[in-house]
């Protein structure tokens, strides 16, 4: 095997050595693929009310429903096939998590780098606001905002972004203000290069590693927050059940022993979150210079 040379290849070579992280990455990829191709592999479209039959509702795993196929994980109170509902639910969870994470990353990084680069009153104002927000638990912010904004995808993403951007801003600010004082940035600023070029070509790339680490953790957090909000009935509209809502739908039936309705969507959710967190842990360790051999 030839020695890897590019930074990405080196990174991958390191990553491969941790088997747990590799398995977690494979799991994330598998779930993402299953979610993307859900309409092709799911036996049923759970959002199409015409295919649902209340005759099939709350059936245990292995039941052969009116559709003529086996419900491997049973059905939910509306008669949805749970395998299909989970696949479509994962789709929503990942979409919301990635969208919220991406917007929060962009917003937070912009604010953080702007504060570090511009300095002065703006810096004090932005960072004071960010610090203030960090002192409130994100779940409370998301809860209140999604209650105020109402149900819907965009509203939910907005609530999650508002709850999470501060972490990105804090991280970007920390990295950028440390880089800002280094000689290479001073040198770049001393040349006739435009300020914008310095920020985008010099400052930002060097702030990327900590931001990538925060991003993985925050995507997992966004998915978990979304599930929590939907479970409380504050997230998405009822006709598009995300994993959290599937779990909430099954909750009343848990007492009577029909636990599969809540348990299987929950297992899918946990596997996704834990896998993302494990990948994130490994990425963080690899970016941490103190742990480098």
């Amino acid at each position, binding site marked *: 095997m030839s020695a890897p040379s590019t930074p990405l290849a080196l990174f991958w070579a390191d990553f491969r050595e941790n088997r747990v992280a590799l398995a977690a990455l494979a799991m994330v990829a598998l779930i993402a693929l299953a979610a993307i191709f859900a309409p092709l592999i799911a036996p049923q479209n759970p959002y199409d009310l015409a295919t649902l039959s209340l005759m099939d509702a709350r059936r245990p795993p292995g039941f052969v429903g009116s559709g003529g196929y086996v419900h491997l994980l049973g059905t939910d109170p509306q008669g949805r096939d749970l395998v299909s509902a989970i696949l479509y639910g994962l789709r929503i969870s990942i979409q919301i998590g990635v969208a919220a994470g991406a917007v929060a990353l962009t917003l937070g990084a912009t604010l953080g780098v702007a504060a570090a680069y511009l300095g002065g009153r703006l810096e004090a104002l932005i960072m004071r606001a960010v610090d203030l927000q960090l002192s409130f638990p994100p779940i409370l912010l998301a809860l209140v905002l999604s209650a105020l904004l109402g149900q819907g995808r965009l509203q939910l993403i907005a609530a999650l972004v508002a709850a999470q951007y501060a972490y990105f801003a804090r991280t970007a600010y920390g990295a950028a203000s440390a880089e800002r004082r280094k000689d290479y940035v001073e040198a770049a600023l001393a040349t006739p290069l435009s300020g914008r070029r310095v920020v985008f070509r010099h400052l930002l790339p060097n702030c990327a590693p900590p931001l990538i680490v925060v991003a993985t953790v925050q995507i997992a957090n966004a998915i978990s927050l979304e599930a929590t909000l939907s479970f409380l009935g504050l997230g998405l509209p009822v006709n598009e059940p995300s994993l959290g809502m599937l779990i909430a739908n099954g909750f009343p039936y848990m007492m009577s022993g029909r636990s599969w309705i*809540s348990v299987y969507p929950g297992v899918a959710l946990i596997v996704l979150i834990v896998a993302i967190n494990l990948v994130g842990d490994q990425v963080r360790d690899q970016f941490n210079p103190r742990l480098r051999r």
Partner: protein
Amino acid sequence: MLGFVIQRLIQAAAVMAVMSVIVFVGVYAVGNPVDIVIPPDATQDVREEAIRRLGLDLPLWRQYFLFVGGVLQGDFGRSFIYNEPVLSLIAGRAPATIELVLISVLCATVIGVSLGVYAGYRPHAPLARAIMALSVLGFSVPTFWVGLILILTFAVSLGWLPAGGRGETVLILGVRWSFPTLDGLAHIALPALNLALFKMAMMIRLARSGVREIMLTDTIRFARAAGISEATILRRHVLKLIAAPIITVFGLELGSTLAFAVVTETIFSWPGMGKLIIDSITLLDRPVMVAYLILTALLFVTINLLVDLAYAAIDPRVRSGEAR
């Protein structure tokens, strides 16, 4: 120091003023509570009377100043749904939440620190690895899911503990508490454990990294050389040194546990403030929402103020604004 205190107090007051405007305007932008208060077949007259009675015919800024004027006199208005002063409504629910939060943070600290100290003391033991795996799970798994599994295991399958409610309560100082009765303790066990797990995971990590660091210092080496027993070393030297950060986190976490209580209380139908806010959100009970949010903001601003002041008292650099 006095100047610093005054400056921080003004900042805190400004933050509260901004928060109250945001909360008030935000909450008043949602839905129309009149439709909930009056029956759907009410006449136009009844409808307008209700609007006037609730003060909804006034412009928003006048409603806000009426509200602030009331709040400064300790009056948060009356709940639309329960038709009771909001403050007494919240005060009636507060003991249940306080009880739950205190017990779970206490459990999280005692259990978390013990497990964490062990994991730090014997970092390579299989049990220590199991503890760390547990703490990773505690961090990753959403609180509501843990609650469901606890109900499924201990209430449905095993039938050991009740799944909801407060159980038998005792009247102490005019307030009802669950913890002094056996039945109440049985009811509080599952929600407290649910609420404690996340904090426990954090305490485990905090204690473990603290112990690992301290065990490598010369203090411990000399103490061992002097023939002091391991138990005494742990108690006198290690625990004492990790105590300070743990107490800080304990204080800070009390606040954020209140926020997580919303989820736990909903799952276990625990009649506390968190359940009240979720109910008032679904019923569009504006006065309760506003009061709850403003009181929560006040709580967090106060905690932050106290932490800032405590750090300033300890570290003079913070006072002069050098270390920012």
